[in-house]
């Protein structure tokens, strides 16, 4: 409500009044998490390059860039899906299960000619949408808390994944993998940029605005004739579809299919979104930030490698990083709020 007052066109035009100053501060507060996320990515990349140069006395080239992007793609997709849901004050724990299922399906079915490969990609994305629809129906009409709905569907999707692919195996057709993988150039960066651009457009679409309205203040949104239930439903459908895309990407960027390979993405997609400045309380955040978060987490692993950290200690530093990054940005946010 405060924002609306601050951003309304009535606030003095032309002159540099206190309102405009407040408005500019509001803009800073709104976008500060995104700026922090971008700074984090740049900083992490700088640390990575320095460590790489020290330990190998050479600079990372296109191969390294390609490796980082390839590894970051599944997490980026999952984190963007997670962001959509978190923006409406929800959470999707079934991301890991959906990625298990779609990863297994992709490893088994995406092969044997362009037509079948394309067809199965569409089918898998539709399965993701259907799983998301189930989540959405239970949240919007079943009126069960999102965390519980997706806890239940997580188990269902994991079961379906094991049914599809009882033991690890299968692989995506080699021609198909070049869509995502290219050892010589970070061509997968194109997908990331497309994803970011799609978000920038989506953010301004009708549904995009409705998502933010629902997440910010559901009652006001409803009073302003935002179809809250439909928005909720669509957010989970989008989240499921993106998780399915992440599952396909995971099958493509790894050597084979594994019906449990997606499990870790449930929590890491949340971590990526939060590092990217998406507020768990809804209504604040950007998918661009979430993508940044995914890259930060991916580069962090490489940094730990070049810093000669014992791989067994890796989760320690990942956890520490998560706590420190979010703790610091919470403190910065509080400071900005106080100044305003």
């Amino acid at each position, binding site marked *: 409500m405060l924002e609306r007052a601050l951003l309304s066109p009535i606030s003095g035009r032309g002159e540099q009044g206190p309102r405009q100053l407040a408005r500019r501060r509001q803009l800073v507060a709104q976008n500060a998490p995104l700026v922090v996320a971008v700074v984090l990515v740049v900083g992490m990349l700088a640390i990575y390059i320095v460590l790489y140069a020290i330990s190998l006395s050479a600079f990372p080239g296109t191969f390294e860039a390609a490796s980082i992007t390839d590894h970051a793609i599944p997490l980026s997709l999952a984190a963007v899906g997670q962001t959509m849901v978190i923006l409406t004050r929800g*959470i999707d*724990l079934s991301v890991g299960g959906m990625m298990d299922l779609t990863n297994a399906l992709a490893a088994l079915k995406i092969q044997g000619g362009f037509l079948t490969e394309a067809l199965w990609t569409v089918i898998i994305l539709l399965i993701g949408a259907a799983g998301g629809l189930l989540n959405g129906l*239970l949240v919007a009409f*079943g*009126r*069960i*808390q999102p*965390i*519980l*709905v997706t*806890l*239940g*569907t*997580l*188990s*269902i*999707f*994991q*079961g*379906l*994944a*094991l*049914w599809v692919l*009882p033991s690890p195996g299968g692989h995506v057709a080699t021609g198909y993998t070049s869509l995502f993988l290219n050892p010589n150039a970070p061509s997968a960066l194109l997908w990331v940029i497309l994803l970011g651009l799609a978000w920038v457009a989506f953010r301004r679409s009708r549904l995009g605005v409705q998502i933010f309205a629902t997440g910010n203040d559901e009652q006001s949104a409803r009073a302003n004739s935002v179809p809250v239930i439909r928005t909720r439903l669509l957010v989970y459908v989008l989240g499921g579809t993106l998780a399915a895309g992440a599952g396909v990407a995971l099958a493509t960027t790894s050597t084979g299919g594994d019906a449990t390979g997606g499990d870790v993405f449930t*929590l890491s997609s*949340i*971590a990526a979104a*939060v590092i990217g400045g998406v507020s*768990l*309380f809804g209504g604040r955040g950007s998918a661009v930030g979430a993508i940044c978060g995914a890259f930060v987490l991916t580069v962090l692993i490489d940094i730990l490698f070049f810093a000669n950290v*014992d791989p*067994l*200690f*890796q*989760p*320690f*530093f*990942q*956890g*520490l*990083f*998560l*706590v420190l990054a*979010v*703790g610091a940005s*919470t*403190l910065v946010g*509080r400071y900005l709020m106080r100044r305003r």
Partner: protein
Amino acid sequence: MSSTAETPPTPSRLRTTLNPDRRKIIYGFAAVVALFVLGDILKPGFATASGIQQVLQVSSFVGLVAAGQTFVILVGGIDLSVPWVLNAAAIVMIAQASGSNGQLWLGIVVALAIGLAFGVVNGLGIALLGVPAVVMTLGMNGIAQGLSLGVTHGLTCSGCTKPPPMTLVNLMTGKTGGIYTSLLIWLAVIALVTFVLSFTTFGRRVYAVGNSQRVSHLAGVNVKVVTVALYGLSGVFAAMAGVALAGFGGGATVGMGDPYLFQSIAAVVIGGTYILGGRGHYLGTVAGAIVLTTLVSVLLATNAPNYARDIVYGVVILVILLLYGRGRSEA
């Protein structure tokens, strides 16, 4: 008020005693009975005294973890650090005791202290820094995991592959007066937690903070102290479960705590505790833990394949929630 004015009908004593929250606990235990009957039909001999005791014994581990989870969910939080706090405590206890009964008690104390320490750090991050509980406890889970694996070199150190001391094994697998000793320990915990929640000032404060932090602050409750204490308790309960599991399962293994994250949350919620805090009781969680374990046992008894078990498990959780876990209508 004049005597002619219509006074609102006073709810009968039965209705006040059986408010919706308490009714959920009864439904939970009814579901347990129904599941045992179903299990006995599917596999005759499932619901014998010893069969029931075995299921209850397995439930006690979920029940211990879920005690801490109930506390933090009652104030609207969540503890995702349970798996590796549990695992770390088990490893520390095993390594400290290193197979001898003499060192067992010190091992248990150190393990519980470590659980408390992780929990308190969780609480401090959440209460003082204002980090969301999901993020703070998720990060601490990683920290506990990295420390456990790194310090023990992937659980290859000489002390950490030792079997648990016999005293602990006997305590966890033996019987006292015809009942599993571990069940008696759980009963003591149930009595203690129920007492704390229902009959102490601290318990009242927990519900107050869960209902509204602001109002409880204005009413003189130190919200931060309560929050830190509850996360500390959650760490202690997870550590307790770790010690118990190490004794029951014959040692510490990597990943032994992983199943207990989602199971503890599910037990709390199936037991009727409101995920956003302020309403619910540990007795409901107890019912939830037994429901989940019985369900898994029934599914195991039917010899259903793994994948079918996962699917049925998820469907049953959702059905139970649809029956009584729904929020108020948002018309």
